[in-house]
């Protein structure tokens, strides 16, 4: 295990050589099942880390954080499908932070293979990497991996629990297990005898669960259907508990201010006035900021705003000119990766004219509706933390360090998240809450960030720049050569959070550009890593969120140069390369009655991105109105390989698209004097009811493997909108946000 840890720590972005060594070494450890972290309820039992049964019913553990993507519902449906429990009878919980809940798919997603052309060998290699995630206790919700990780795992949890219950019943009844059936939380014998699961669970937990296969999809009762979400009633009645709704006896409320020059220190502060203010109990030095603890969040906020603070400098250029110069200059550095390199991309094909375009996109905030917050209670020998988070084991371990405790002395209660989008993979808000709780030993404290602190202390989607050149001949693209420069999220975040140095070509940096299913004979994508120092993080769709815009805008520019319909132009190059992707384009063409022609005052754009295992094609329609250009309609076709919950997939597709459109229209984080200039929704807005499009979604299932759904809706939205604006106005959108260059309805 120690050697394995060394391997994974040394090389988080795994090169194929490291995989070969790692898999061979890891087989023994892989066979060891992580300990079951659940404590059996009185009169009940935990049959495995995912199934708890007692006399009150069945509780399923869905150990991925619910941030709106519906994961709690679909993970529960996977278990319930095999366990034969009535949907209305189950309770679904997130469960504790534990190694048993590692996410194997999160590591496999880092392999530098184009998913659309993945071979069975490569797919198997990804599955073997499962053990790496187990070894590093990677309990992460992100990268649209939860279902890819849980699709078989959760069904096996249900099936093995069911067979264990049947085995106990078989022994009690003196019959063969094979003669028993199960339904609505009962084992049923051929003579009609029914035994409730609750009567069998304690004994079933003590035996080794019999091996069994998984049911055929043709027999599914829950999977493949739109299930009522397990969180829907709570979220429609104000009774769902988010992190910010945590209430513990004797709890105090706190607010904070952190150095707006990100990463800078605090030189000093004067809290004399603040300490005298109403409702204030205590001012706490956080090192790079201050917190005020009091009787009410708003009173604490007023006090913390009254503190006079002297801030130190940040480790990056003071303004956008300096920051963007660093990003742009990386384009001229030698590449970190050339993950696509087909034909000869250096020379211009004979008889063609070179087409060039430069693109830029800004830093973006996550801007979750629920501002960052955490509640912590430190008693001297134990720490309890309540918060929405996408990484509970990391949260537990880092907060344990801050409190001077071992991880086993820390409990993390993962609540519903009022949005995640990658922001809550971070642990900064839990660490600040822990620092406050340690200073306030014995008193639980809820630390809530103001919207201003939240927006100005994010880990931003990096700004990026691209330089593309290409050529067309006989109506087809014959050259596409793209250079992409940005800070590397996939290197900087693991290094910052886990001390994992990275090596090799950075796939995350170029995903959405290098791995798209187009047959272009001379095709090269190079990734260039910029060193800037602005704190960056995973943002919905990560690299795809900017590379999709670059790649699909340039494809549109090539189509225009070739005087071709942009949809047909794409389709021709895609049909031979990847049929399911081509079908998404054909589907969205049919859904939208795409003719390639639009009347005056209306524009349409198409874009396609293959990301997180799922090809997605979108058509966006814009219309000139008296109030500006409105985004009126949208059509989405996706291919998820296996459809588990159509309603949830549809919601993720249009929700992801609207998140992308919001960024395309409004999203921009800028710096002045090293501090973020935007601070709240009036200067970092998003689409709203009046300017969000009507949308239709079709879900296909012909792709070779099950794909993710939380993120793939986001990347094509930005280029589809830009391409629609080109169709309407004749002006090409080469930089975001679009509100600067287009008169959009906002």
């Amino acid at each position, binding site marked *: 295990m120690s050697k394995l840890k060394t391997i994974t720590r040394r090389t988080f972005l795994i090169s194929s050589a490291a995989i070969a060594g790692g898999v061979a070494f890891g087989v023994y450890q892989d066979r060891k099942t992580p300990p079951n972290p659940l404590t059996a309820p009185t009169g009940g039992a935990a049959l495995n880390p995912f199934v708890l049964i007692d006399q009150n019913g069945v509780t399923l553990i869905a150990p991925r954080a619910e941030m709106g993507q519906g994961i709690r519902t679909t993970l529960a449906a996977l278990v319930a499908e095999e366990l034969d429990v009535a949907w209305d009878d189950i309770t679904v919980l997130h469960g504790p932070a534990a190694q048993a809940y590692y996410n194997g798919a999160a590591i496999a997603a880092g392999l530098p293979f184009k998913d659309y052309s993945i071979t069975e060998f490569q797919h198997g290699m990804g599955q073997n990497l499962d053990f790496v995630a187990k070894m590093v206790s990677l309990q992460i919700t992100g990268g649209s991996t939860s279902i890819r990780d849980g699709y078989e795992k959760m069904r096996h949890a249900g099936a093995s629990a069911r067979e264990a219950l049947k085995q106990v019943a078989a022994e009690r009844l003196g019959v063969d297990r094979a003669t028993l059936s199960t339904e609505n939380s009962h084992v049923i014998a051929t003579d009609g005898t029914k035994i409730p699961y609750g009567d069998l669970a304690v004994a079933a937990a003590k035996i080794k669960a019999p091996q069994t296969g998984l049911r055929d999809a043709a027999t599914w009762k829950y999977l493949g259907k739109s299930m*009522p979400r397990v969180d829907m009633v709570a979220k*429609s*009645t104000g009774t769902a508990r988010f992190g910010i709704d945590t209430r513990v006896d004797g709890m105090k409320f706190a607010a904070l201010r952190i150095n707006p020059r990100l990463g800078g220190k605090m030189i000093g502060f004067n809290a004399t006035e603040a300490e005298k203010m109403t409702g204030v109990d205590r001012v706490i030095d956080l090192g790079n900021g201050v917190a005020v603890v009091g009787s009410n969040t708003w009173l604490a906020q007023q006090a913390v705003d009254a503190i006079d603070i002297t801030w130190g400098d940040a480790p990056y250029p003071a303004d956008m000119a300096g920051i963007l110069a660093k990003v742009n200059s990386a384009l001229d550095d030698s590449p970190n990766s050339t993950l696509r390199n087909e034909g000869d991309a250096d020379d211009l094909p004979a008889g063609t004219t070179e087409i060039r375009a430069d693109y830029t996109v800004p830093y973006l905030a996550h801007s979750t509706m629920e501002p960052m917050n955490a509640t912590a209670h430190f008693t001297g020998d134990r720490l309890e933390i309540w918060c929405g988070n996408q990484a509970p084991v990391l949260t537990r371990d880092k907060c344990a360090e801050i409190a001077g405790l071992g991880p086993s002395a820390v409990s993390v209660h993962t609540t519903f998240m009022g949005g*995640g989008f990658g922001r809550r993979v971070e642990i900064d808000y839990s660490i600040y809450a822990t620092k406050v709780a340690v200073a306030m030993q014995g008193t639980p404290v809820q630390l809530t960030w103001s919207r201003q602190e939240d927006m100005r202390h994010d880990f931003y989607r990096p700004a990026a720049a691209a330089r593309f050149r290409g050529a067309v001949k006989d109506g087809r693209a014959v050259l596409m050569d793209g250079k992409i420069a940005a800070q590397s999220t996939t290197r900087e975040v693991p290094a910052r959070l886990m001390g994992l140095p990275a090596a090799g070509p950075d796939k995350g940096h170029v995903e959405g550009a290098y791995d798209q299913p187009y047959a272009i004979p001379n095709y090269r994508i190079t990734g260039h890593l910029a060193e800037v120092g602005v704190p960056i993080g995973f943002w919905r769709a990560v690299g795809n969120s900017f590379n999709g815009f670059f790649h699909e805008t340039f494809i549109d520019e090539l189509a225009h140069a070739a005087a071709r319909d942009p949809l047909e132009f794409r389709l021709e190059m895609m049909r031979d390369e990847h049929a399911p992707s081509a079908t998404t384009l054909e589907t969205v063409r049919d859904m939208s009655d795409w003719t390639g022609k639009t009347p005056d005052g209306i524009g349409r754009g198409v874009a396609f991105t293959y990301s997180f295992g799922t090809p997605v094609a979108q058509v966006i329609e814009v219309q000139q109105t008296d109030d500006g250009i409105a985004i009126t309609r949208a059509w989405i076709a996706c291919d998820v390989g296996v459809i588990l919950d159509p309603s949830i997939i549809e919601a993720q597709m249009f929700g992801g698209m609207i998140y992308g459109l*919001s960024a395309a229209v409004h999203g921009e984080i800028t710096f002045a004097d090293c501090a973020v200039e935007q601070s709240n929704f009036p200067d970092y807005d998003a689409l709203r009811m009046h300017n969000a499009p009507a949308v239709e979604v079709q879900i296909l299932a012909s792709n070779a493997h099950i794909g993710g759904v939380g993120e793939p809706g986001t990347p094509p939205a930005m280029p589809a909108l830009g391409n629609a604006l080109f169709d309407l106005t004749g002006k090409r959108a080469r930089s975001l946000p679009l509100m600067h260059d287009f008169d959009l309805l906002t």
Partner: protein
Amino acid sequence: MSTPLTINGQSYTVDLPGDVPLLWVLRDAVGLTGTKYGCGVGSCGACTVHINGEAVRSCQTALEDVDGDITTIEGIGTPDALSKLQTAWVTHQVAQCGYCQSGQIMQAAALLAENPAPNDADIDDAMQGNLCRCGTYPRIRAAIHTAAADMREG
């Protein structure tokens, strides 16, 4: 300062300065956490409650300015007794993260009280102050139409 309040038909007395926004009275003093903090500047609608039936942003309403009966999301319906509007929310599976939905429902309830048959433009006008970062707007719109029809039928 001791202030009497009527919230969801119940009487409360709170001891807070008069300039504390109603939002933070409800959440931190009364313990009704269904009303959410989103922006603190009246630009996202997550904190929407009713005062005398009218939708207001509780983050912009000082305790001392509250001049009527308050209704919060907890007063609209409960998990065991959903209002028609909430039933429509469940039918259309509106919520994703769910954080903004209390405010969306309170805003929609005020709209339907005033206009029992809103068209899309009416919905745009009434709902554009309520931000949803998950982008649930298409289903919010559908749920409002469904609820309006159900409520007209009685």
